[in-house]
């Protein structure tokens, strides 16, 4: 059994997760990255995507959809995300609706000058897609 470390996942509205985990896989801006105990200290920014944790003593992964944030790796790990949801909590229909809404908005406002709204819509689309993926079992097909 691999050594475990303490992970806290925090969102603006609540403490999303606290516990001992063996392996944490998160989407950083440079791609997927896995962290195990005794990782060298790091501070990295996160992308929208899928977070997978393997809790201490278990063989399967729990996956959640997270939306941006940062991870602070020291002897224990603190992960801050703007939004986080476990796979089983995701409302698929709402995610689907959000996705369609964002797609529609983007196609309608193609030549939009307001960069900020376009970026927001793109992020919303990414979030919806990531939530759908996670709800459907994620990349690992769990």
């Amino acid at each position: 059994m691999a050594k475990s470390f303490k992970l806290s996942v925090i969102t603006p509205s609540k403490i999303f997760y606290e516990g001992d985990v063996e392996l944490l896989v998160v989407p950083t801006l440079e791609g997927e990255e896995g962290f195990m105990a005794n990782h060298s200290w790091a501070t990295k920014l996160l992308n929208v995507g899928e977070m997978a944790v393997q809790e201490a003593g278990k063989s399967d992964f729990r996956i959640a959809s997270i939306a941006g944030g940062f991870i602070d790796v020291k002897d224990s790990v603190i992960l801050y995300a703007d939004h986080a949801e476990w796979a089983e909590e995701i409302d698929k229909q709402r995610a689907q609706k959000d996705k369609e809404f964002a797609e529609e908005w983007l196609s309608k406002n193609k030549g939009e000058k307001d960069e900020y709204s376009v970026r927001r819509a793109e992020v919303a689309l990414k979030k919806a897609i990531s939530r759908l993926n996670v709800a459907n079992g994620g990349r690992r097909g769990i």
Partner: protein
Amino acid sequence: MAVSMQDVKRRIKSVTSMEHITNAMKLVSAAKLRRAKATFEQTNKQLHFITDTIGEIFTSTTNIPEEYLEGNREIKNTCYIILTSSKGLCGGFNSNVIRKAEEAMRVRKSVPKIVAVGSKGRDYFAKEGIEIIGDYEDPPETISFLATQQLSRPIIKMYEDGEIDEVVLVYTAYLSTIDQQATAIRMLPFQPEKNANVMMHDKDIEYGPSMEAVFNYLVPKYVETMVYNAIVESATCEHAARRMAMENATDNARDMLQELSLNYNRARQAAITNQLIEIVSGSEAQK
């Protein structure tokens, strides 16, 4: 006895209805306080996580981009984020914050610019002729994190563009239900604390994708969470202050009622005595 029964009765009536109002407001703000306090305690717990983490990152590394550090530019314009309420009847809550802000402005002597949360502070400083660069007016206890982001983003942008050189947050800190204190803290630029609590370490930290990117993300995040936390805290204080003010008002009204009903009874007795004298002296004259 100069006071007429009619007058006293009228006053009793008005004070009674006033007492009803203040008492009802007291109950309402007590309920709101309870709710706000629950939110505050929860957000405080987790936001401290974030601010502590970020603070730790800032203090434990020596390579923060210079623009965010103290002493790298002359402070000409200071932005004050002032958290007051939008409603009155909360005792000294707003005046304490305003006084604290004015004190901070006097000490600094730089040109003040204001971002006002709550209309009381905005109106006051607008009358003083100080430039208001942003405001938020809805009830603070319902503010969302997104609204905080929209509020703080322009501030950070102006700081980066050099339009403001310092950001000071003036809000009411919650100490207990009966004790709140107006506080002014400086958010930007950072003063790296060289205290013993923060361990200096010599470990290399990996930054991804790059150190600049990390700091460019963390600084706004830090400001946003600080502002969010302060707004929630200040909302809690507002309700606590209003509850206290209304409790005092209710107590005063009750004292007044007691005194007034004493006066009323005296006036009533005096009237009866007068009438008796009239009847007795009338029948005396008939004999």
